[in-house]
């Protein structure tokens, strides 16, 4: 279980004139699924890096289980808060997929036998078995993305932050990662997803934190925020398809399952019943 408390956080990159984040206040608890949404350059990644200690506040504080990130090492935080970069190339350094995945496990003191077992599990979940001995840098964009997630998820951090996880993923992989993230939350872990893919966010996240120009302009139920035209426009978002469908039909809670949505429409509309 992990709890992160962000209080009056301001952050400025050392060579910048303006603050990238202004007056951020947030509490993140266990079993949360949060989408961080907002326009390009809104400060989403900067906020995520403040949550895992890669960046330290210019003013204010970020506390993980009561301890200020300024007094914790990045490695110590990483055991609890895993971070998957938007660019996998920034994350990779090993010569094979296997080594890439085992690196974290070894550093966190898993035995070689445990590491091997976990490696095999995660390769299977992410469909990367045949790439075990390949060089990570030679994989395709979507494969790299899956490896980047696999190599963090493998040590089961209590909070997993993913920066644009669906880039380069096809439909089947997107469904797969959705399923994986949902099951993490049901096991009591928390996830934070930074994404522009509002449909993906709506499928897995209950809560949304919407940023615009470095400030939080909305924090609450994702469904409420993404039904709000003002928030959508201010943060350059789009209404998720499922919310649009619900509003149009006046029904609540569809799951992203096109077979059952189609069956439903066939049942409701007389012209489909002939």
């Amino acid at each position, binding site marked *: 279980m992990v709890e992160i408390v962000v209080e009056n956080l301001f952050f400025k990159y050392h060579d910048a004139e303006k603050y990238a984040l202004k007056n951020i206040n947030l509490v993140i608890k266990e079993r949360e699924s949060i989408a961080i949404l907002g326009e390009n350059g809104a400060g989403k990644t900067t906020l995520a890096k403040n949550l895992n200690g890669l960046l330290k506040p210019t003013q204010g504080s970020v506390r993980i289980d009561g301890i200020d990130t300024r007094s914790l090492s990045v490695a110590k935080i990483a055991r609890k808060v895993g971070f998957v970069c*938007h660019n996998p190339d920034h994350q990779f350094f090993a010569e094979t997929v296997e080594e890439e995945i085992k690196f974290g496990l070894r550093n966190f003191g898993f035995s070689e036998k445990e590491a091997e077992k976990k490696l095999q599990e995660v390769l299977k979940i992410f469909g990367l078995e045949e790439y075990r001995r390949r060089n990570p840098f030679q994989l395709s964009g979507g494969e790299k993305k899956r490896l980047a997630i696999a190599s963090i998820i493998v040590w089961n951090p209590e909070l997993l932050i993913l920066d644009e996880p669906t880039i380069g993923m096809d439909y089947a992989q997107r469904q797969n990662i959705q399923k994986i993230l949902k099951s993490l939350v049901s096991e009591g872990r928390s996830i934070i997803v930074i994404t522009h893919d509002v449909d993906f966010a709506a499928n897995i996240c209950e809560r949304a934190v919407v940023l615009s120009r470095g400030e939080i302009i909305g924090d609450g139920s994702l469904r409420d925020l993404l039904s709000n035209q003002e928030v959508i426009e201010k943060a350059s978002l789009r209404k998720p398809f499922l919310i649009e469908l619900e509003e149009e039909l006046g029904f609540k809670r569809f799951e992203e399952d096109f077979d059952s949505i189609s069956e439903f429409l066939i049942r409701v509309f007389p012209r489909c019943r002939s």
Partner: protein
Amino acid sequence: MKVVELRNVSFRYAGSERNVISNINLQIEEGESVLITGPSGCGKSTIARIIMGLIPHSYPGELSGEAYVLGMNVFENPVSSIATKCGIVFQNPENQLFTFSVEDDVAFGPENLALPRDEIRRRVDESLKLVGIEHLRYSSPNSLSGGEQQKAAIASILSMHPSVMIFDEPTSMLDPSSSVSLVQSIFKLKESLEKTGKKITLIIIEHRISLLLNHVSRIIIVSDGRIVVDSDPITALYEGFKQGIPINIPPVLQIFFRIKDKCGLENPPKDLKELLTNLKTR
């Protein structure tokens, strides 16, 4: 005129046991706008690398077949000569930005074409404006967000006025409204250049089909290293749907394809509202 022609092209990356693409035959005519899509790892980016000559010149592996771009034999000409006519925006913008300011990156191509100073300035202004990053002109590419870098990379290609432009997931890091406006500006640019008599061919690799569906004239679906579908957009997606290829078919079409026969619908709807309106009419 054919701007791209691949004949029986197969490629296997060094160190890999299987071909990433097999027997690709592809012809693209001048002025076409083509979307190449398909499951991750299916060989889409490899096809782009072959058109640019990056394969075989920069990527080791086993190659067979023939490839021509604007009549040039790709395998026998250096990448530098292909790059003057054919520009590519890579999946990862950081791989193509390398100077200390956005302006320098955008000017780099035209400088290397040895264009006059005024023309370089004009093209830099124009390209920055088209992607909407005039305010980042003097920023360091390193300090930009992912989406801003992507725009800078696109501007650095636009300034070359290439006649063939390849985009490998050009909007992957952009927010929804910037993605839409970027795609619009790419097609607007094509249109405005065509008014001056210059034909532009666009080849776009994307998973996010919904962004491009109304802009492209043709969709090619690659699966397991082979071209499995190649036709007009709606037919291509319906075919992909029937074959169960895991591509990101827009939600409204996912539903349309499933119910169209049962509900007697003919024309694909452009959005959910239209689908529901059609369903309501008896």
